[in-house]
């Protein structure tokens, strides 16, 4: 019972912060709202007994990505920053999103999910994750590190100033 209440509270905070991200006029406020939403998702991971993923979420999203976004905001301070941040297709976009949401909710409620009784042992899923990551998913795992390296080099090359980098 108390678990349901906590889950509901986390869900409301997460969605409210996400509304803040897409509704606020200030880019910096949007970044702060995004941080709240991402930490809310990390709390959801904790409620689902996925401690490792919650930790990764806080480290990578809450730490790295938010900081990088804030850097980008500060480096792209244009004089026009006070303008409205939304474009003309806003009503159309809102309609499309409400429609998609209705569709997704209908699908989620109509599908006969083959549910299982969730285990209470957090170590079981953690052990399974680490075993899978280093057996069946070893090659994708290594390729992911290559992807990160290439993205890093690409970012450095793209942002390098000077004539030879252009």
């Amino acid at each position, binding site marked *: 019972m108390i678990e349901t209440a906590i889950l*509901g509270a986390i*869900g409301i905070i*997460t*969605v409210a912060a*996400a509304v803040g*991200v*897409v509704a606020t006029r200030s*880019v910096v406020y949007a*970044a702060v709202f*995004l941080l709240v*939403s991402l930490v809310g*998702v990390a709390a959801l*991971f904790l409620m*689902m007994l*996925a401690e*490792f*993923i919650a930790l990764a979420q806080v480290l*990578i*999203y809450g730490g790295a*990505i938010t900081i*990088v*976004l804030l850097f*980008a*905001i500060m*480096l*792209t301070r*244009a004089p*026009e920053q006070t*303008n*409205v*941040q*939304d*474009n003309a297709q806003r009503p159309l*976009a*809102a309609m*499309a*999103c409400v429609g*998609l*949401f209705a569709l*997704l*909710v209908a699908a*989620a409620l109509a599908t006969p*999910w083959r*549910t*299982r009784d*969730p285990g209470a042992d957090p170590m079981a*899923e953690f052990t*399974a*994750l680490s075993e*899978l*990551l280093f057996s069946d998913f070893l090659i994708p795992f290594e390729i*992911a590190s290559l*992807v990160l390296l*290439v*993205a*890093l080099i*690409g970012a450095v090359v*793209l*942002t390098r100033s000077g004539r030879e980098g*252009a």
Partner: protein
Amino acid sequence: MTVLEFMLILGAALFCLGLYGVLARRNAVLVLMSIELMLNAVNVHLIAFARYVIGTEAIAHVLIIFVITIAAAEVGLALAIVLRMFRNWETVNLDRISTLQQ
């Protein structure tokens, strides 16, 4: 409403808010934030499936790890492109930027 359905509806709400941000926002950095919201919505769905649906237990956890990794790579690269655009045009307004050339 079961916890699974609650999590699915929550993820759907996050995804639709992110989609709205991608479609309606003008600032490139705000569009990137909305994409992060959508990626997180997918992760919420995956963790719900991992816990409550048969046959997805650990695979979903692996997928979440990969989604987080790719999101980190994506945001770094995309922000590099945004900075490059800002240097070339002095703006990050997506309505005013139509090419990547100088």
